């Protein structure tokens, strides 16, 4: 059965607001397309710690995260997974964390929803109460017959936070992440951007403001992380981000951990990723990998970081926090070689970290249990007893001495950290996920929250990823899990960006809630927030393959890869998937839930997974590129932008909608303003579909192009009303336009032009700003600008400053841009080079 539920996460704007005054949560409450509606239980301020994972044939998890501080509730993610295994229920109690002031504690609430078989299951309406704005993640988990799969679907997003609901079923999660990424982009100062975070498959939700700082930028990282994770997953089923550890089919499920805890920047989390994944992630984080996807991601993250205050540190943290539980089955394929033990571990962690959504891939290691639960951590008070048992539990899972040693070391770190944090006593160690050995990390936590231990947690989302449904402490359970075929489904996630805008623009929320379910749907989600910046924040998830274009081939490759690692027979699936996708969604829930093993019993299920996965990959990829492109636009990096644009063109040509109109407008502007080739402009214009010309952004772009040759008055009028990121592109042209205009004025006006008028038409002063005080700054700026360009000013009888046009017409010049060198890269300057050599 594959029920794919998409859970939409809604954020409460209100909550968000409460959290950070500055940020406005974006309110897009758009229900996600998700078929299943999740009901949110709003958590009131009271902390709810419960994590219930009920195993239902289908599992639903509802997570509610409440932040203590803000009393923000995180949306509850429902996971409509089909969990069958009765045993599988896990409770997570996350006690609230006492966090540093900034930290918020998140509570996860897991509601288990039983899936009704059949359609009913699918549709879960999540009611989000107050959340409007945010995205949600809808995660749909499809439960396979095997009961073991857990899906965590819901993400609660704080307004600040981005939720990414990562939907982890394979590809799905990715999509989620992307969304989140996008959101991430908008980061208020408040945010800590964990740009570097390895992208959680799921998205991460960021909180800004109060303790949780989720950095939207992190999303990019997430993506990468994602990729890493995915590699193994390729097989299929979209895993949802929430940490579902249980992947039955060997499909790696990603758990999203919702880290309710806020990250504090200051706290360093060290996640050690033992695995190569870590390395990759780290690279991604630190290095900008030029490689196509990755690179893009990185950049994104970087960009996003910029806004963030402490991007560097935060990133680290983020990374640490991210946990990727790896599915045992997957593991073989992973270079890392994770021990297969971990079934129980799966979920672990994420809870602590504030913003993260951790995707945990079930890892082999039993130990690996993630500490995501830390987040949960809130207080359990018994330090000694519960902690001791926790330690014992961890050690018990170790298969050999090496593991034991490792886990001891890790535990020590954890305890040390907890002690340092003061969370030692507050943490509920019982809930603490077992360590994942390989990865182990101490997720350090942010002050506010407990640490995440889970080795791979990619993203931190505010909401913790759902824990793995199973109790971690049951080793046995894992096997079941692994056996089970799970189909994680994804639901769409919507991310909302809370908009704190660092910049002026208003912010916006992202809604990324797109559900991947149907192709059509996927992109539409993005709500375009008015503000540019927020947009950029959108999370991008990367797929392994960088290219979106290569859907099928890559998918196939992935499939092979995955299938090899997993015994499942996936093969036929891909082909069918597309056609039948929608149907499949509907049907599915019936899968018998067997607690133990379940492989997908039929091709149909596998097909569905594959189809979903592919779909998600494409959607996510395009989302990633969109986000990347936006960031590039914001940072004025046109070459980067045009690379994204060319990728996006392919996506859009392939039928993905996304924000294609918006991007065709950007493309138009970019070509018309920054390329000398009229031919490119012509072909761009000629290729605009009819309906595109009705789009406001496109229309605006066309108008701009019409006046770019001289009508400066209209140009600046349009500049003032530029929608979306259009103004960023126009920004790049403003200087040229002004210079052209001042030359034109100098030549055509006699004897003088009042600078007040000129400042007005050249956009230095708002046209409507009659107010002296407002105008004064603009005038001063304009005067400076005029002087820098060689204009000559005079004062007339009335004391008004005028431009002496006759004199100015011969004295105007374009000042040399600072640091400009002919080859465009100041660092390659010959002088400098010679100086160094000599």
């Amino acid at each position, binding site marked *: 059965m594959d029920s794919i539920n998409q859970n939409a996460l809604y954020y409460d704007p209100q909550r968000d607001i409460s959290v950070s005054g500055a940020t406005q949560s974006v309110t897009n409450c758009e229900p996600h397309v998700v078929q299943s509606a999740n009901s949110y239980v709003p958590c009131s301020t009271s902390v709810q710690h419960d994590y219930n994972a009920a195993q239902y044939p289908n599992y639903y998890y509802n997570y509610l995260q409440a932040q203590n501080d803000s009393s923000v509730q995180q949306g509850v993610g429902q996971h409509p997974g089909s969990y069958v295994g009765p045993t599988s229920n896990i409770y997570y109690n996350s006690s609230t964390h006492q966090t540093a002031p900034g930290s918020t504690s998140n509570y996860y609430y897991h509601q288990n929803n039983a899936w009704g078989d059949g359609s009913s299951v699918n549709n879960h309406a999540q009611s989000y109460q107050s959340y409007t704005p945010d995205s949600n993640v809808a995660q749909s988990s499809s439960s396979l017959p095997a009961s073991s799969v857990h899906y965590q679907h819901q993400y609660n997003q704080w307004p600040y936070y981005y939720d990414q609901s990562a939907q982890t079923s394979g590809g799905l999660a990715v999509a989620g992440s992307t969304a989140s990424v996008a959101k991430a982009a908008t980061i208020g100062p408040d945010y800590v951007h964990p740009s570097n975070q390895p992208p959680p498959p799921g998205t991460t939700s960021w909180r800004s403001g109060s303790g949780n700082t989720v950095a939207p930028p992190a999303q990019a990282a997430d993506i990468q992380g994602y990729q890493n994770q995915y590699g193994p997953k390729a097989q299929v089923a979209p895993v949802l981000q929430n940490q579902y550890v249980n992947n039955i089919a060997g499909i790696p499920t990603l758990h999203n951990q919702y880290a309710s805890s806020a990250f504090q920047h200051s706290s360093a989390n060290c996640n050690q990723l033992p695995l190569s994944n870590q390395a990759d992630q780290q690279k991604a984080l630190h290095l900008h990998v030029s490689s196509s996807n990755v690179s893009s991601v990185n950049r994104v993250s970087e960009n996003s970081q910029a806004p963030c205050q402490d991007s560097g540190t935060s990133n680290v943290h983020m990374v640490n926090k991210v946990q990727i539980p790896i599915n045992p089955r997957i593991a073989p394929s992973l270079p890392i070689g994770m021990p297969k033990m971990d079934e129980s571990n799966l979920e672990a962690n994420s809870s602590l970290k504030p913003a993260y959504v951790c995707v945990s891939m079930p890892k082999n290691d039993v130990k690996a249990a993630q500490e995501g639960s830390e987040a949960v951590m809130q207080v359990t008070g018994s330090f000694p007893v519960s902690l001791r048992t926790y330690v014992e539990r961890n050690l018990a899972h170790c298969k050999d001495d090496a593991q034991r040693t490792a886990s001891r070391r890790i535990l020590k770190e954890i305890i040390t950290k907890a002690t340092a944090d003061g969370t030692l006593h507050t943490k509920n160690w019982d809930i603490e996920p077992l360590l994942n050995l390989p990865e182990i990390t101490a997720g350090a936590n942010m002050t506010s929250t407990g640490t995440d231990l889970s080795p791979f947690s990619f993203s931190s989302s505010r909401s913790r990823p759902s824990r793995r449904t199973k109790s971690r402490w049951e080793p046995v359970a894992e096997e079941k899990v692994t056996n089970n075929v799970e189909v994680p489904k994804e639901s769409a996630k919507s991310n909302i960006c809370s908009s704190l805008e660092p910049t002026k623009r208003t912010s916006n929320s992202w809604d990324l809630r797109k559900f991947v379910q149907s192709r059509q749907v996927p992109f539409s989600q993005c709500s375009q927030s008015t503000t540019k910046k927020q947009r950029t924040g959108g999370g991008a998830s990367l797929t392994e393959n960088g290219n979106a274009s290569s859907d099928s081939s890559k998918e196939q490759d992935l499939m092979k890869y995955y299938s090899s690692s997993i015994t499942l027979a996936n093969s036929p699936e891909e082909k069918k998937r597309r056609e039948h996708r929608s149907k499949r969604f509907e049907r599915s829930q019936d899968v018998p839930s067997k607690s133990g093993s379940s492989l997908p019993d039929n091709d149909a299920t596998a097909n569905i997974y594959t189809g979903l996965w592919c779909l998600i990959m494409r959607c996510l990829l395009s989302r990633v590129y969109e986000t990347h492109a936006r960031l590039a636009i914001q940072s004025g990096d046109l070459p980067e932008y045009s690379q994204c644009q060319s990728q996006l063109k392919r996506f859009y040509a392939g039928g993905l909608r996304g924000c294609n109109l918006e991007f065709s407008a950007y493309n138009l502007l970019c070509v018309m303003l920054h390329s000398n080739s009229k031919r490119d402009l*012509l072909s761009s214009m000629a290729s605009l579909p009819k309906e595109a010309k009705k789009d406001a952004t496109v229309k605006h772009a066309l108008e701009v192009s019409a006046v770019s040759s001289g009508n400066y008055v209209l140009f600046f009028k349009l500049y003032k009303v530029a929608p979306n990121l259009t103004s960023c592109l126009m920004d790049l042209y403003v200087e040229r336009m002004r210079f052209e205009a001042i030359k034109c004025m100098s030549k055509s006006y006699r004897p003088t032009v009042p600078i007040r008028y000129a400042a007005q038409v050249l956009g230095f002063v708002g046209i409507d700003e009659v107010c002296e005080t407002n105008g004064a700054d603009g005038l001063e700026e304009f005067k400076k600008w005029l002087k820098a360009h060689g204009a000559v000013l005079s004062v007339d009888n009335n004391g008004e400053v005028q431009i002496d046009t006759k004199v100015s017409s011969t004295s105007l010049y374009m000042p040399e841009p600072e640091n400009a060198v002919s080859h465009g890269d100041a660092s390659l300057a010959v002088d400098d080079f010679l100086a160094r050599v000599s």
Partner: protein
Amino acid sequence: MAAYLSMGEAHRRIGDYLSRVVDAISSSDGAALASLFAVSAPGSTLLSDALAAFPDFPRLAGDRFPHLADLLVPLLRAIHSHSLQRFADAYSSFEKAANAFLQEFRNWETPWAMEAMHTVALEIRLLAEKADRELAMTGKNPDKLQAAGSFLMKVFGALAVKGPKRIGALYVTCQLFKIYFRLGTVNLCRSVIRSIETARNFDFEDFPVKDKVTYMYYTGRLEVFNENFLVADQKLTYALMHCNPQSESNLRRILKFLIPVKLSIGVLPKRTLLERYNLLEYADVMTSLKRGDLRLLRQALDRHEDQFLKSGVYLVLEKLELQVYQRLVKKIHIIQRQKEPAKAHQIKLGVVVKALKWLEIDMDVDEVECIMACLIYKNLIKGYFAHKSKVLVLSKQDPFPKLNGKPV
């Protein structure tokens, strides 16, 4: 009828074809060879029937003329596939044959086979276009035309050398232009153009006229894209002058670009010309220039937008707006001179705004002022603008200079 063709007859026809090719090569008969290479020509049905009836033709060709097997076998295959409407296959085979032929061609010192080479160049382009259509229909990546482009670049490399073969280079260049324009990769034209125009040892005028006309047409269009109107005018005019006057469709194609270019440098065509060559889409544009009717220009652009965008003259026409404004101001000036000669040279901004309002063009005073400034700046009006009094003061001498062949 292929079905009734006896094996013997089929064998005979194929053998006949093969020996004609070999004979043409051995006797250096370029024209004969060219006709034999015309894969898509309708005359080859006899042969293709034979090929259908005698599926073992590759071995026949290989056995009989082993030294030319590289050329003959794929050539027969191409003819066969083409007759079966399998164009992608036909293209692939033909490209192999063409490569083999090019290899041979390089070794021949005299350009006797130039005609055949040109046929190959033409055929490969036509086949590639058909193949791409076929591939696109079946959802595959249509990349054959691009491949044909690379092949023709090789041919161009073999021809654009010192010596007698160079005379054939322009033809290949034109084929390349056609491919690049179709693919939208006109920037690739640049290297070819440079190679043609910078050659010191070969005068451009020595190329065949038809190639020169084609070449000038395409390079003129490129200049339109680049908005080098003077050069474009020069090239397109050359093409027009040398074009075969009987070839109305070619004349029309040239005029389609030449007219906008001329308009932009201030030269208006007669209406009869537009009618004769069925270029009436420019009629309104022309009228608007004469009347200073901005609304009409915008309407015309809007009405023919797709067409103009496709041909690439949209932006050129859009730029005519300033000329229309100029005309409008000029008309106002003339009227004012009649009514109030003393103040003929002072045009109040309000008057212009009012005139535009009559045209249902909604512009505020600032915008109109900006337009006036632009007109002065671009030398469409001589005079200056007094901001304080909002008056456009015209020069007493020639306030509206004609463009006279200079672009705005």
